[in-house]
């Protein structure tokens, strides 16, 4: 066991972790954050994506022990009192069905809009190529991101 101190959704947390524990497992089992989902546990589906210092990272691929001092944001942390423009657009365009992919997709899209507030369709596809969704055919997700990007101030 080792102690790790990190910032999770703007709160400082200190936890004991095993060296082999992934960030995904620690988030879900020790830190009570259930929005990151496990779809593959090997970096292929994106359902476990979280933001680490603003960058979208697949939490199943890194060990919790590596996260000392880092700022981690899960979908719970993005969902404050008010939904983000992106979340609103997700509702408007029915960009989820079962919703299992949604936390990872919204994290990836959040990162995209931060680094590139007005992406074109190709850039959106590229940014989402690591997120699998079996339900929506992605099109409603693209639509929501395009809409949100229009509402983001120039």
């Amino acid at each position: 066991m080792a102690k790790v101190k990190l910032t999770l959704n703007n709160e400082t947390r200190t936890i004991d972790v095993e060296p082999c524990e992934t960030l995904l497992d620690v988030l879900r089992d020790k830190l009570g954050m259930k929005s990151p989902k496990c779809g593959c546990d090997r970096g292929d589906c994106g359902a476990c994506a979280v933001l680490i210092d603003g960058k979208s990272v697949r939490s199943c691929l890194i060990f919790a022990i590596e996260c000392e001092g880092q700022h981690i944001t899960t979908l719970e942390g993005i969902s404050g009192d008010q939904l983000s423009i992106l979340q609103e657009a997700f509702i408007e365009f029915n960009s989820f069905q079962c919703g299992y992919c949604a936390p990872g997709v919204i994290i990836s899209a959040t990162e995209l809009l931060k680094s590139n507030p007005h992406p074109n369709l190709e850039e959106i596809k590229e940014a989402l190529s690591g997120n699998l969704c079996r339900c929506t055919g992605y099109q409603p997700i693209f639509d929501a991101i395009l809409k949100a990007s229009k509402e983001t101030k120039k």
Partner: protein
Amino acid sequence: MEDLLNTPTAFRNDAYAKVTGIAKYADDITIPGMLHAVPIYSDYVYAELIAVDATEALKQPGVIAVYTARDVPGKVLFGQIIQDYQVLADKYIKTHGDVIALLVAETRVQAIAAIPFVRIEARELPAVLDPEVAMLPETPLLHPAHGSNICNEHCVRRGDITLGEQASDVVIEQTFKTQRIEHSYLEPESGIAYLRPDGVMEVMGSMQHPFSTRRFTANTLGLALNDVEVKTIPMGGGFGGKDDTAALVCARAALCAYLLKRPVKMTYTREWSMRESYKRHPYTLQYRMGLSQDGIIRFAKSRFVADGGAYCSVTPWVTWRSTVQCCGAYSVENVHNDTYGVYTNNIFSGAMRGFGSPQVNFAIEQLIEMAGEKLGLDELEIRRRNMVRQGSTTVTGQVLDTHVVSLQQAMDRVLAEIDYTNKRSQCSFGDPAQDEWYGIGMALSYRGMSLGAEGVDFNSAIISVQPDGSVLIETGIHENGQGSESAMILIAAEHLGIPKERIRYRMPSTSNIPDGGTTVASRGTILGGGAVVNAAKILKNILTTEIKTAKNIDVSSFRDSGLYDTNNELVMSWNDAIKLCYSRQQYPYAFGVFQAPKVSWDEHTGQGNAYFTWVYACQAVELKVNPKTRQVTVLNIVAAHEVGKAINPDMVKGQIYGGLATAVGYALLEDCKSENGKIVPTNFHNYRIARATDLPEMTAILIENHDPQSPSGAKGVGEPTLELLAPAIANAVYRATGKRFYTLPIRIEL
């Protein structure tokens, strides 16, 4: 009046929970004191099980128990049609996905770490992996109790094939093969169970059929159905794939919870899910078809063999649909079809979105074009001459006259939208002078709705109005992620004349609503929605009667949260009517049922009114092929679907996009290969489904002809979306490369 059914944005009652990540799926739930169970597999494909030795495993840290078939208090075998599916392998290991034992530990990590310490002793037997071999009389029986390796057979005998042969000027023969594919729901199976103080085994899980899960659990534990309560929670996709295996995962968690008297969770890894869960049936389809010079199909003879794998599951129903639709959306007078569902030692096959039609359409929608070409008729004309129309008779003798047959409408809309005729002239046909080949292709389909003569087909809904006028509804349809709850709310809102915000969908439990059958076959909206409409009628009757008795006023309509008389004068607000009801000791509570209209089937002739209504579709696709890399790039897809009535139009379109994306995978990417009976793909790195970058722009066109036999007017859309793009792609690939591909997935070899 507010047009509730045409709100510009999609409506989902679970939207907030899903976009904020607070929706709780099975694995997100924890119960204090909960243990973790994991499956133990063997390396065998087919073997006689001699012993399971758990001595070493039980010494591992945290390990509490290892259970085998011997520990099952109820029955080891279960199944929806034939009871041949083992909860845990008993005497024989019949396929590589068989679970031999369950290991329970304090933590999941401990449980997984102890797996290698369970020793399995077995005597290997020669596996039967080829369905054609399995069907030979000398092949040993895999399920001796069944008496044959042929799980089921169906046929169609219509007209006279000999006469058809005589009337034909051209005859074509072709064999097609389709592959096994994995549902790839993003959430792997998971189940949680605990024995309540009142003695009821409560189960929650990632499954799409709570009643099937209840039956599996009760059967395993030897309990009555009312001793098991299965509750619905959000689930991460099913596509037909979360019945048998997912139900069994729940039943196994319940088994451990029952034996240990502690809550138990069993969550699958992707690897276990891919190894054990049933798949789409691989088919071999042999056709011989004859046409006369005028382009009319004179006969079609076909033989389909579906690899059902080690267990029956719903193979008889899947293959039945193939039989009924064996000639696709065409009228043919002389038809002879034999379809076999066959046992092998492969991974078993079961329900998957499309359910026996994608395989047939892949064949017939190419065959019709090949025939046209032989006769010098283009692919549109040959279809026009043979497709079903209003009043046509299907190959099973059903007259299509109870609803609008909109196949031509669907075709015309798609061809216009994609500009087919113009683009058709630009196709490359493998022109060596071009360094990129372009092709366009299309396909048609028709599909019998709901279960048809596969089984009993009815559903129920409860509408319970609370004293403050707010409403709780519930149906026997399961929310698989498709948005069925939202559709039910919209239907109730329309029929009660109140805003949808006043209606809450109560998460159902098997102990509250009657068994409504499985939420498959695109039957959610038509059956559940029908029950909601009927419940609303009963409820309105209660209110109308009370007002008549109390005030001697006739209420004639419900709208804008009010009750109106025949002169359109407001009689009373919705809230006041509910208050009146309660004050007169009447509950505004209704139980509505929708029973699917009668269908018929003669299994000896394969004739009958197979389905009570049908839907129609056309899809077209543009693509390019790189002659050097053999890479296929899909450029554009247009799909038109008859839906009866679109209850939640954006959601219906969402269903279409999702089906198309999976169909691109079916046509070009996905192949759940098996080597010596062992499934090769293990996870998403070696099982490729469509990613965002694989998909083009998609256009969904909704065709609405309200179905008189559906109380809500709606039909269904889930499955048809996935049944015809593969042949449209094959046809486009043909026009790009000049070569036909008869095997799925399409791999360009030139």
